[in-house]
């Protein structure tokens, strides 16, 4: 039997090792190695996704499990597998990481270190979504987040211009400290889980079968929730996010917004909802209020920005609010509650693909114009129809146009919220309006209107950028038209998350 999941996880690392011993001026070879490893992983993840889609009924349990003994005296083993919760996340990682690698072709300095770190981070993200052993979960989690420090700090860009400047070194340090604080809390929670269940194992499959007492659940829930919420941008803990996402180089902004945020969301679904269901039912409705705050506050902040990357970063804060609203429905004894959680999971995928596309286009335009200021762009549609097309497409997806994934995610979340906590839904709907406002405003400022004379000679998209755009746009449209392709994988696991059938 071929260990598909392990191949997906470790191929990028293998490529990173090869790149590490390649002379640094053989840039083409380095790029080719990175891209072929990324493409192979993506291809395999699509294969794993469709294999899972063939037999969705089995997705309530971990499939294609591979286990290797590692440190038995501590109850640690290397164990990977996918279930309904992680299957779409693996696909998302595949799409976003390959698109990010294509966008990385534009990186023009220190490519060797760049690709080594980038591939390690991609391995880490795959590993987070695939690992069933919690010890390895932590290792992969850090493998995904530590390289970000260097990637943001070395290859990033500063925001200088109107408003408060954001320097990439500061942003990188902030990102590191926040993510590590989150990681530290998760580590603490995992140790606590190890002892609280009495199972003395880090095997998620075994831990899921144990019953936690009410007090343990509450403590564990809070540790895990805060830890992951730092990563997933819950409002009082989100401040690293706009700085980090906007300072990062384009491909890294895509990875950060596209999959790293999703690690936090996935962690909340996996650890809080699945392992501590009673505490989740108790606390999450309260945290849904913060979700509504996320939607409104993130939207208002985005409305205020003239820097396009900071704007997109705040739009991520706003959209992650939808996720918190969705999981807030997990407790209410209403027939609609399942839709909230389903929508939250859908939002992870949808936001990942669409925001990655937004960042990709914005970053590509930045490479050409050397400006991130929307007001300095002006009328690019006349010179760069490809960029304009994909930016508008992504903006439409992001503001929830029917036919793209964003619509279904927001629809399901609001549907569930209306059924369980209607005041929050009422609060959140203006958020959608704000989203529309800042996205359309950015389209108008940046791509329509009179052409800025500075950009008369601007080139349109390079072919590798087009490949990246096409991948992400296809996914956003495909699952927007056939949302059942995603929901079918989540539905089998949904009873385990909300304590009952949909």
């Amino acid at each position, binding site marked *: 039997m071929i260990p598909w999941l392990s191949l997906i996880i470790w191929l990028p690392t293998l490529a990173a090792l090869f790149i590490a011993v390649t002379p640094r001026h053989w840039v083409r070879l380095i790029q080719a190695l990175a891209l072929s490893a990324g493409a192979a992983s993506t291809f395999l993840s699509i294969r794993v996704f469709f294999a899972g889609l063939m037999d969705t009924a089995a997705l309530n349990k971990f499939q294609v499990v591979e286990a290797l003994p590692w440190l038995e*005296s*501590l109850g640690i083993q290397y164990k990977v597998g996918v279930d309904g919760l992680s299957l779409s996340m693996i696909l998302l990682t595949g799409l976003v990481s390959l698109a990010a690698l294509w966008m990385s072709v534009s990186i023009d300095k220190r490519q060797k270190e760049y690709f080594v770190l980038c591939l390690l981070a991609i391995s880490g993200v795959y590993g987070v979504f695939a690992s069933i052993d919690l010890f390895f979960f932590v290792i992969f989690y*850090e*493998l995904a987040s530590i390289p970000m420090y*260097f990637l943001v*700090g070395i290859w990033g860009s500063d925001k200088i211009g109107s408003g408060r400047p954001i320097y990439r070194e500061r942003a990188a340090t902030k990102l590191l*400290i926040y993510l590590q604080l989150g990681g*530290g809390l998760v*580590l603490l929670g995992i*140790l606590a889980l190890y002892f609280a269940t009495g199972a003395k194992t880090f095997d998620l499959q075994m831990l899921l079968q144990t019953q936690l007492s009410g007090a343990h659940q509450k403590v564990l829930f809070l540790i895990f929730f805060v830890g992951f919420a730092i990563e997933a941008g819950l409002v009082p803990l989100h401040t690293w996010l706009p700085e980090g996402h906007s300072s990062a180089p384009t491909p890294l902004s895509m990875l950060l917004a596209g999959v790293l945020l999703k690690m936090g969301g996935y962690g909340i679904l996996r650890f809080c909802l699945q392992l501590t269901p009673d505490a989740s039912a108790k606390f999450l409705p309260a945290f849904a209020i913060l979700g509504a705050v996320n939607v409104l506050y993130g939207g208002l902040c985005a409305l205020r920005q003239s820097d396009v990357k900071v704007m997109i970063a705040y739009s991520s804060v706003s959209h992650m609010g939808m996720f918190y609203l969705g999981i807030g429905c997990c407790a209410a004894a209403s027939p609609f509650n399942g839709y909230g959680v389903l929508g939250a999971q859908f939002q992870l995928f949808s936001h990942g693909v669409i925001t990655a596309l937004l960042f990709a286009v914005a970053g590509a335009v930045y490479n050409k114009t050397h400006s991130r200021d929307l007001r300095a762009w002006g009328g690019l549609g006349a010179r760069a129809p490809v960029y304009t097309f994909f930016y508008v497409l992504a903006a439409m997806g992001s503001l929830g146009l029917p036919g793209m994934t964003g619509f279904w995610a927001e629809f399901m979340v609001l549907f569930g919220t209306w059924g369980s906590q209607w005041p929050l839904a009422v609060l959140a709907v203006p958020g959608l309006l704000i989203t529309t406002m800042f996205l359309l405003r950015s389209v108008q400022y940046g791509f329509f209107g009179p052409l800025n004379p500075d950009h008369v000679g601007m080139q349109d998209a390079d072919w590798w950028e087009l490949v990246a755009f096409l991948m992400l746009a296809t996914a956003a449209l495909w699952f927007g038209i056939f949302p059942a392709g995603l929901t079918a994988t989540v539905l089998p696991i949904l009873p385990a998350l909300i304590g009952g059938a949909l």
Partner: protein
Amino acid sequence: MNWSHLLVQFTPELAVLVTAVWVILSDLFLSRHPSGLWRQCFLGLAAATIGAAFLYQVPTPGVELPAIITRVLLVSPLTSSLKFVVLLLSTLAVVFSYRSFEETERHAGEYYSLILFSVLGGLLCISSQDLVLFFISFELLSLPLYMLCGFRRYNSASAEAGLKYFVNGALSSALMLYGISWIYGSLGSTHLPTLAANYAVVPSPPSGFLVGCLLVLSGLGFKVAVAPFHTWAPDVYSGAPPAVSTFLASAPKVTIVGFILRLFWQSLDGTGQFFNLPVDWVFLFTVLAAGSMFVGNLSALPQQDVRKIFAYSGIAQIGYIFLGLAACNNPHPQQSFSAVLFYTTVYGISNLGAWAVLAVLARGQERFDLDSLRGLHQRNPALAACLALCLMSLAGVPPLSGFMGKFYLFRAIYESGLPFLVVLGILNSVISLFYYFKVLKAAYFVEAEDGGTSFLQAPSAGPALPMVQQLAFQLCLWSNVVLGLWPAVIGEVERVASTITQGS
């Protein structure tokens, strides 16, 4: 009585002793050539390291040693493994000393023989069964270190470091000797097993014994620079030549932690009681550990001198080790024991690797502020990579050895019912990221200035490091990965720990 067994059992010590004497004599009568002396010192230590590894791997059961030896010196899997680690660290430190600063060339014989005598003292410390022998070997360990710290006698910082270390070291020795005299006065022996036997027949714990134990602990605390006995460390580490700090920050610390393990832990029972003394040992070690972590980490934050950052980080790391010592009422004491042992080893190697980068850089520069590391990734990628992995390991970044060590430690602490300390530990490792990554930022973020003050003019044209140093850097670099990911190492540590807990 079979003398050949004696030779076998004490191969490491004898090899170090012979090399030390040989280096002196060779310096006097044969050749004063620094490379030659360096090579002899390195070969002697390498032979001793291999000997220790051999002793650890191939125990010699049924060997009858003369009673006069076994009374004062112990050979067990624990001592052999500790000796192996200490010798490995010393060998590496010697490798990195090569031409690190001017005096290693002019006074090579003295320099290397002092290191060798210090190592010999450390080895005897680890093995000693008697407090008097311990004290003597402790002094043999320390005295050369005072001289080494002040080895650049025309450099005021180095002279200050030597003097400061000497004064503080003398104080710690005095405390320890005073403590030993209290122990002798209250229980009538300095021989550790006899002490335990005497203690068993005493009706109530003599208070003098308690005073003695606390004084000995303070003396040891001075030596490992645990807060509040740490005040000498930043000045000494930053004043001493970096090559000396490389040695000072690794091998002697492992030695002393090893002896603390033997002195305090071997006598602990499962309930965390050390000889039934009316002291809350958990609380005592917790205070030392938490104080050390916070003092070290918070003081390191504003530092601009890389040597000071490393010195404070060393204080914080000792805090983690004491955190493990605080977990002494673990229902499975071997867990805490092996966690401390593993973490100490990891700390020794990672810390040595980080200092070694400075030791090698010291060939061309006097200043060690953060700017002096600028562009290191271009000037010497291998050095930068070693620095990066060692510091990330110390900061506890997975999957490196430091993370595995911390994880293992935290698990033992949690098991002994102190989750609060785990929170402290995690909090501190987040704080420590800030300054560890500040160093890495200096080394990686900025490109080297062209024609600046950097010592290696062109990125590729730096003086090539000797092959042995390059290999040693690779060893330090990869040890962070291997110790973190190869479970067999933890298996070995657990095996050593189980021999201890079964023995007591």
